[in-house]
């Protein structure tokens, strides 16, 4: 009986140990080791490095996925309801999100629009100046608003004559020229190509509008930055690497990213690069400009 009691004691200890270990394993299973981070994007040549990195599998290794939207406005909404962790957006979205209380910071600059944001019209500047009524089509809650403001100011147009029509870029792309209608459109690459084919002419772009800077960056909640600093550091390296590879071999990158850019022709793709400046390694000049518009740059990953 003594021996059997001893055996039972030993078995008991083993069972308790096994249960303990099982519970430990079960509880540890509930925690994710490598949390997925989602980044919201939309068709913009400046975001091509992100598309390229995804297609090359660079993002997969970091467990970062892309959510592709029609417009920045959609991206912002997704971010605001917590559906994505990061957003590729301009300073407009940055300030808009800050305004509604989001603790968001830019961690990596991507590009600066250097002609990529465009003002189109079916009329000339002079015709518009003399027009009684102008219909301005734009994504009001986007950088478009800053561009058109700058355009109006620069060309001294009468704000009261302009009727602002809020539309997303898909709706804008479908616009046709009308002789009886003075139309003003704010869009960006690659949506401009359809519009230009439809007869709209370019009146201005960010290349001409020196008063305004349009900077694209990866914005992220400060908590995410703290929690995933190492991952984001690697993400920044991937961005640098992708920009380098894209610019070095545009032909190859085109094949990978064209589907994210509404299947734009290669020629337009190649020309698009002339409309932006890569700012992944920002110059002092650009940083000063950002400072002037109160754009936080201290969290930028080097």
């Amino acid at each position, binding site marked *: 009986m003594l021996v059997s009691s001893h055996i039972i004691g030993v078995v008991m200890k083993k069972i308790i140990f096994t*249960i303990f270990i099982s519970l430990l394993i079960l*509880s540890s299973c*509930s925690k994710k080791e490598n949390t997925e981070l989602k980044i919201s994007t939309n068709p913009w040549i400046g975001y091509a490095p992100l598309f390229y990195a995804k297609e090359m599998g660079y993002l997969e290794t970091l467990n970062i996925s892309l959510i592709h939207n029609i417009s920045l406005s959609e991206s912002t909404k997704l971010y605001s309801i*917590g559906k994505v962790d990061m957003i590729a957006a301009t300073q407009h979205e940055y300030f808009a999100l800050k305004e509604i209380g989001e603790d968001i910071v830019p961690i990596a600059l991507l590009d600066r629009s250097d002609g990529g944001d465009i003002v189109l019209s079916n009329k000339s500047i002079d015709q518009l100046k003399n027009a009684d009524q102008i219909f301005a089509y734009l994504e009001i809650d986007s950088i478009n608003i800053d561009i*058109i403001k700058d355009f109006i100011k620069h060309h001294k147009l009468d704000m009261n004559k302009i009727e602002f029509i809020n539309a997303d870029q898909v709706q804008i792309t479908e616009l046709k020229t009308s002789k009886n209608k003075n139309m003003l459109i704010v869009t960006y690459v690659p949506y401009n190509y359809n519009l230009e084919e439809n007869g709209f002419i370019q009146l201005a772009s960010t290349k001409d509008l020196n008063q305004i800077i349009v900077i694209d960056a990866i914005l992220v909640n400060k908590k995410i930055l703290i929690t995933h600093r190492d991952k984001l550091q690697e993400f920044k390296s991937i961005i640098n690497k992708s920009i380098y590879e894209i610019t070095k071999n545009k032909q190859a990158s085109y094949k990978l990213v064209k589907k994210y850019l509404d299947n734009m022709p290669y020629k337009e793709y190649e020309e698009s690069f002339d409309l932006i400046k890569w700012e992944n390694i920002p110059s002092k000049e650009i940083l000063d400009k950002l400072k002037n518009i109160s754009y936080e740059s201290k969290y930028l990953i080097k």
Partner: protein
Amino acid sequence: MIKKLSIKSFTIISMFLIFISSGYLFYQSFLDTKNNTRVLLEENIQFNILNTKYYLEKNLNIENPNRIKPYLNNIVYTNDIIKAMTILDTKNNIIYQTTLSDDFKHDHTNCIGMSHIIDSNIFKQRCYTFSIKFFNKLEPYYYHGIIELDSNYLNMFVKNKIIKYFSFFIIYIITIMITLWLIINKVIIHPLEKLRQYAYYSTKIPRPFFINEIEGIRYSLEFTFKRLKKEQDELFNLSTRDPLSGLYNRLSLIERINWLISKGKRAKNNFAVLFLDLDNFKNINDSYGHNFGDIVLQHISEVLLNVVRDNDIVARLGGDEFVVVLTDVKNDKEILSVLKRIKIELSLPVTYEQYTYNASCSIGISLYPKDGNNVTDLLKNADIAMYKAKDLGKNDFQFFEQTLQEEIQERMKIQALMIDGLENHYFELYYQPKVDIRTNKIVACEALVRLIDPKTGIISPDKFITIAEENNFIIPLGDWIIEQATNQLRIWSNTALKDIKLSINISIVQLNNNAKLFETIKYNIKDLDVSKLDIELTESVLIKDFDEKLKIIHKLKELGLSISLDDFGTGYSSLSYLKTIPFDTIKIDKSFIDDFENSQDRSFINMIVAIANELNIEVVAEGVENKKQLEFLKDIKCQQYQGYLCSKPLPIHKFEKLFLNQV
């Protein structure tokens, strides 16, 4: 000390641990489900808010806000978790409120923004807010929406989940516990209890068990118990049986006789104890070796087993001693029948290799309760009777009688006296004169040993010499006699008795140990006139190993001793002895002298004296008690006589006095 724990307690503890762990897992599962549900509900809310926000930003006409009412009502009514919705303009004026929530106050200070829905706990949150962005030209302005959650619905939802999970958990755990308990009870506890009982009582072998390890233990126990039983039986046989014959040993015999006595006391049953001792068995071992001796013993065992009934007892006490107990004996006739069968069966020869042996035995019989009411007395008395049978010539049986007991007691008393006799001077040499018939002068004497009991006086040599021969005491006693006799001769050598010839008797036992005898005599006759020492031998000592005996006689003769043949005419008298052995004297046995008036005896005496004279051997007539006998002996020219006519054996001082008086 190891703390003991029963399987049941162990199982209960295990089940408790399973209960705890299952409870934990269920709780975790519940939390997980609750969390998933929370996320789904929050996503539902998010979806609705997003759609509402999008719808309002695109469709809210500030001048006619009622247009949005159907849409918003639809959102609220079709969603169980939304209790009410309120839309406030930039000045916090209500432009829409769900009609159902009349009591709802649009205090949204505790509401959280829609961007934090995912981080919130919908089950604890009362409401969410969202902004609706409008532009006046290019300047933005905001309305606010408040969505109030139906806390009753959410609480009920959680409550239902808890009840559902708890009920499922209880049913699950009870089912598991009962099933587990039944299984463990069936395949572990019950088999282990059976094993425990088997290990404790080792009687009924349990049937094979389902659990391999337990079955292994059962098989090992069964195997071990079988082996132990076998060893136990072997040990029992070893302790109760004689290994050579397979018969009961002394211990078992005593046990069984005790049982018979107990039974006999109740049922008034009688039984007989037969004590058997093989005759001359020692000679078998000495002559044919112990292997043959063992074969004979096994044969005897078989014979005894065959002749008795099944309920009789046969035992071997050791050596060549056997005991047969005849149970339920009604009369002596039954015993005699068995004795007869034993004798017939034993008389058949035993053959082994080239040897053949005809066994015989002496049997002593004691009867319960007549000859003893305990095992010791019964065995002792049967033994006494057996010795009596041996004394009476062997190959016979003897019933115990009380007189035998007295004989034995007498014998034991003599044995005890003899053991200390030499040291305590209980022995003394008496001297009986031998008289020259012609001169009527004492010319010789025979030294005769006497045992003197300090209490009762002289004990006859007939009583103690036989005992001394049986227990070999005759050897030291014989040495003492030789020493005493030779010393006496030395004493006499310077006295008037210097010409007296002294005879001493040598026993068969001494003669069998001839080397020692020779050395003893040789040692004691140093510086002695050996012609004065005579050795008397009886005819019986010469029967066995004659050649050996003849050698020692010749050696004694070579020492210068004379040899007398004692008790001539009795026993195995053979004239060839006179031819072969160089006797100096023959002594005619007293029985012839007693009956000398019988013509036949007179003829024998005449013939003996004539032969002796012819062979130049001296003749001494023993037991001469009257003058008529003496006259007859004188007439036939017999040289010497010995007997009460002259003197009975005398102590030394009386003998010397007798001799000196005649001088």
